[in-house]
């Protein structure tokens, strides 16, 4: 028999038992639907995280900390193996920063300087953190792509870059058309002003910091009352800066620590009087640690520079944390996650394949005489086998197509729900699911493969039907 005829015959057979065929197919539809939605969630997370890493240049940055800490030990809870920095550990001071800057492959190195401030824009006030940022960082993401205005041009300019999040705290909503929408659940109140970014850039803001009041301190000592840290005599200092840019944080799974708070050029930030904890210990006459920064930020030119630079810095006796070199591990973790998610779908498909086997064996029992007739009028075993095979494959193809549609529908729905409930504040809508082409083709192929496998036994059985027995009159 020609394949076209076999195909037609199979479809006619399926059509004859519409309800049963539909229910059998539904099993595959659900199996594929579960598989597709599960795996697309896995790939979605992977895509979002990897994209977030790339967007933020996380693969080319590392952080230097005073101690050599083995991140694996920390994460595995193996605390005993962690080296606690001892007296000999060199401080992360400017000398170290210079040495690191000189390493081949290093493009930028600067210390982390960050302190709490009070910020005033006109009559509006908010608390935030101020972060010192060298102008050289303007060459790299995310600062190469400041949403409104510009990045710093020199380390000494009296500029400040605000964030959309801070503006919201100041009760200012950016009215620009391209501004990311506010987070769900965030409601504007009466004090809220809607302003375009142009009207904010160029304006002056006041930065307030607390410093130790030396006179008050001296007085306290003279009166024989040593100040406790909670009752320090403090005095407020003010600095005025000009807004040059506004950052937005578009939807991204990886939020960049460097983008938090407000940014001020390094030298300007260093010039802002402030209270450092080290200075408190100095004042209290303790044996001060020789200063040093809590951490350094280092950026290399290319991903392959990361490892040599990391080794060189570790030679100096410091600890290095690089997210980038964890990429391979991440990939492995994602693979495991995908496999686990996929396993759920595969179990659903196995159940569906049992449904196919059951339906087909039943239909062979019902159609035994028909199979005998087909053999008597010249049907070969190959013909009979193919008829049942094509029936199973058709169930698989239809199940695969409708299963893909179901899976897609489920992910769209789940995405809407997820975005309205679990989206972090201030982040634009994110697509939690990703259905790559390989998943579409793979799911279809898998549906057909599973159906064909399910069809093997029934088809063999049908082909083996003894026509003499099948045709013996009742």
């Amino acid at each position, binding site marked *: 028999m020609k394949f076209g005829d076999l195909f037609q015959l199979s479809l006619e057979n399926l059509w004859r038992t519409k309800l049963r065929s539909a229910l059998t197919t539904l099993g595959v539809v659900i199996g594929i639907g579960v598989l597709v939605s599960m795996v697309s969630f896995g790939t979605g997370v992977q895509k979002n995280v990897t994209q977030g890493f790339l967007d933020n240049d996380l693969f080319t940055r590392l952080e230097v900390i005073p101690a050599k800490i083995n991140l694996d030990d920390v994460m595995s809870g193996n605390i005993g193996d962690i080296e606690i920095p001892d007296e000999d550990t060199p401080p992360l001071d400017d000398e170290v920063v210079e040495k690191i800057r000189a390493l081949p492959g290093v493009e930028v190195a600067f210390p982390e300087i960050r302190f709490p401030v009070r910020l005033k824009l006109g009559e509006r006030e908010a608390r935030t953190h101020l972060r010192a940022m060298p102008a050289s960082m303007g060459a790299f993401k995310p600062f190469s792509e400041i949403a409104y205005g510009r990045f710093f041009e020199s380390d000494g300019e009296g500029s400040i870059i605000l964030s959309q999040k801070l503006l919201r705290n100041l009760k200012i909503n950016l009215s620009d058309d391209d501004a990311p929408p506010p987070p769900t659940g965030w409601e504007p109140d009466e004090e809220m002003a809607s302003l375009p970014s142009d009207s904010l850039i160029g304006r002056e803001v006041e930065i307030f910091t607390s410093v130790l009041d030396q006179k008050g301190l001296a007085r306290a000592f003279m009166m024989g009352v040593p100040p406790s840290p909670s009752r320090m005599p403090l005095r407020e200092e003010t600095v005025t800066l000009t807004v040059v840019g506004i950052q937005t944080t578009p939807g991204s799974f990886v939020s960049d620590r460097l983008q938090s708070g407000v940014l001020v050029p390094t030298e300007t930030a260093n010039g802002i009087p402030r209270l450092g904890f080290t200075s408190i210990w100095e004042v209290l006459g303790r044996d001060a640690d020789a200063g040093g920064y809590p951490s350094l930020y280092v950026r290399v030119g290319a991903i392959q520079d990361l490892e040599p630079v990391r080794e060189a810095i570790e030679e100096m006796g410091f600890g290095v944390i690089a997210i980038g070199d964890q990429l391979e591990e991440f990939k492995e973790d994602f693979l495991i996650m995908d496999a686990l998610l996929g396993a759920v779908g595969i179990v659903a498909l196995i159940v569906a394949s049992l449904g196919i086997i059951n339906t087909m064996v039943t239909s062979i029992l019902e159609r035994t005489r028909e199979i005998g007739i087909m*053999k008597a009028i010249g*049907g070969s075993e190959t013909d009979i086998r193919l008829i049942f095979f094509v029936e199973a494959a058709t169930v698989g193809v239809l199940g695969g197509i409708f299963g893909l549609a179901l899976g897609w529908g489920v992910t769209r729905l789940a995405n809407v729900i997820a975005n309205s409930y679990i989206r972090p504040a201030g982040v634009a809508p994110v697509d939690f699911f990703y259905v790559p082409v390989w998943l579409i083709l793979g799911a279809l192929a898998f549906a057909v493969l599973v159906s064909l496998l399910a069809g093997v036994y029934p088809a063999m059985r049908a082909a083996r039907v003894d026509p003499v027995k099948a045709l013996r009159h009742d």
Partner: protein
Amino acid sequence: MTPILRTIDLEKTYHKGSIDIPVLRGVTLDVNEGEFVTVAGRSGSGKSTLLNLIGGLDTATAGRIVVRGADLSEMDRRDLALHRRHTVGMIFQSFNLIASRTALENVTLALAFGEHPRSDRKSRAAEILSRVGLADRIDHTPGELSGGEAQRVAIARALANSPDILLADEPTGNLDSRTSEEIAALLRSLNDEERVTVIMVTHDEAMADAVSDRVLRLLDGRFVEEQTGGGAP
């Protein structure tokens, strides 16, 4: 003249557990092209078994079946399927039509297995159905047909791929005597006009005598006597 069909010392033994049930014990038979041969014998004598062996639905325990020079015992399952498809056409007591398909579709299915050109199948099926006297019933399903009409569809189906031999196993067994006569007469006319060789099994001695060229009697797995039928020219 070489016979179109020849069985030589044909044996068929069924096994039930350790018990051997010899059904055919050396059947030798020559059938000439265009002959109408009837096989008679009491129930259980092995008539259906013989027809199934000739039809290639079953295989012999010993002996040979030679059809147009081809030995069935040397054929594999694929060749036997081709033998059933092109060389023989089978008709059964219980019609064995596919209930969900119309008369026309039952015939076109046989044409599809015979790889007859698709575009020509319907007209060919209609033509054969009108040849067996069913021109006005082609869109009826077996459930909507009388026994005689259903058997005519089965005959049309058996003829679809122009076989050399028609094998009819008690084709009138389920029919009343008048209808039986009509079906027997139809087979005889097909034998006369289309030159198709017919081997028919029946219990009806009178009918056998009336239509056949030759009547063979099976007893205990062997032919016991041979007589010339009244249908002989």
